[in-house]
């Protein structure tokens, strides 16, 4: 955009001529006496219209009132008598007395409150002025304490859980050390890159040879070490379905049993122990399996 002359110098249309005509109006000269008036006015302290002050204060007060109206905090609800708890979806619980809750499944979050007693299928939890989570699953009750102190009772056993601690009840049975000895098996697919070993083993497990048995066993071991318990169990169960009398079936049965115990799937573990006793009557580890089965039956 370049500079251009004013319309008054280039007026062509009627509208432009109007502008030129208005621009040609000379300013009215100022009265020489106005300078003296100005100097006299400058000598006075400037004043403000006092009538504006109440109007201004009124406007400020109205503004403050509006702000207070909208920013007034919501009244704090009075404390509710009884327990204060939060239950997740699908939690099954009932309150049997002002301070007692029966929790059969799901998770409850207890807000810091007075005396509270929670009854689960596995234990009784007692607390006072504590904040904690209690969760019931099929294999037990877990407890995570965030504030205060919580007492868990089961039969004659009493455990005290403090803030920052957690507990799962009943505890997993101790697995005999002999059952944890992994048999030396020739490593398969060991040359495959780390991310491709699983697919290599899965590919090897397709045929019906001895290699397939070893591949399925190793696949389960790989999944268990990676923390994928479900997939490890699936691999070994598949192995037992396909090769119930295979050369590796005792090792597969033991690995499955141990993994089920670690995953707190006690009922399935007990069945797996029973299957082992039937299928491997002459196995030297049968006694340890019997011991573990006895512990599992107590859960």
């Amino acid at each position, binding site marked *: *955009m*370049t*500079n*251009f002359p*004013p*319309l*008054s110098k280039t007026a062509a*249309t*009627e*509208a*432009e001529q*109007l*502008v030129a*005509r*208005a*621009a*040609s*109006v*000379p*300013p*009215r*000269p*100022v009265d*020489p006496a*106005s*300078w003296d*008036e*100005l*100097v*006299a*006015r*400058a*000598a*006075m*302290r*400037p004043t403000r*219209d006092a*009538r*504006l002050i109440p*109007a201004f204060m009124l406007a400020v007060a109205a503004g403050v009132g509006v702000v207070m109206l909208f920013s007034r905090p919501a009244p704090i609800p009075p404390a509710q008598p009884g327990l204060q708890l939060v239950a997740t979806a699908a939690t099954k619980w009932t309150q049997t007395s002002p301070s007692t809750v029966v929790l059969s499944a799901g998770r409850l979050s207890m807000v810091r409150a007075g005396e509270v007693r929670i009854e689960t299928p596995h234990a009784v939890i007692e607390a006072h002025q504590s904040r904690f989570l209690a969760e019931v699953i099929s294999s037990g009750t877990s407890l995570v304490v965030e504030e205060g102190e919580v007492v868990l009772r089961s039969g004659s056993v009493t455990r005290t859980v403090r803030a920052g601690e957690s507990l799962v009840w009943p505890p997993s049975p101790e697995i005999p050390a002999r059952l944890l000895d992994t048999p030396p098996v020739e490593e398969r697919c060991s040359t495959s890159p780390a991310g491709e070993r699983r697919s290599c083993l899965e590919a090897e497990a397709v045929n019906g040879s001895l290699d397939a048995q070893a591949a399925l066993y190793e696949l389960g071991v790989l999944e268990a070490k990676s923390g994928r318990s479900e997939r490890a169990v699936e691999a070994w169960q598949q192995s037992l379905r396909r090769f119930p009398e295979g050369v590796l079936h005792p090792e597969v049965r033991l690995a499955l049993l141990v993994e089920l115990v670690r995953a707190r799937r006690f009922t399935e573990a007990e069945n797996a122990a029973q299957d082992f006793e039937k299928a491997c009557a002459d196995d030297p580890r049968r006694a340890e399996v019997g011991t573990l089965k006895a512990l599992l039956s107590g859960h």
Partner: protein
Amino acid sequence: MRAHTFREDLHERRHFEGVYLALDAVDRAVTLDEIKGVYFAHAAELRQAMARLAPELDADDLLQELFLIVLRNPGQLSAVDSPRAWLYGIALKLATTRRRTARARRFFGLEVADATPSIDSSSRSLEQRDAQRRIAKALESLSATKRETFVLFELQGLSGAEVAQALGVPEKTVWTRLHQTRKEVLAALERQLLVEARTSGLTRGEIQP
């Protein structure tokens, strides 16, 4: 003979005993006579400009307020390159502020709106008065920045550089604004002429005074 500084000048004048002035701002010798010279050189056109920018307000009052500001900030007058553009800059701010204050006063019922807005009454002819009236009407629909740019350049005859200094914007911005504003003003004037011709039954040529 050494010229009196503005401060000394004030002390010598009884009018200024107890005067409320920001004397700390004086960093150069500025005499009251210098300010008087500036006043008589530019007061008339500044009053005309403020009458065009704020037609509902008293232009004489605005002019006095403008020069009260100058008297209270004498140091700034000596520091600017173009006193004319600087004065126009103050005039623009003053007109805007006073228009806003007047609206507030009317809102609180402290002031009644002037039913007949006054245009600087220096028109010399009927044609000029009619042109003033039409331009004032056309300027009503413009935004403040466009109105200020148009008035300063087209009506008051400031150069592009002076308008830029008065508005505190780059000169390029002034030309861009002017380009757009010209179109809007001329279109508004054309509409006025057309509407008047239709309602009067005359041709556009016939309605010219």
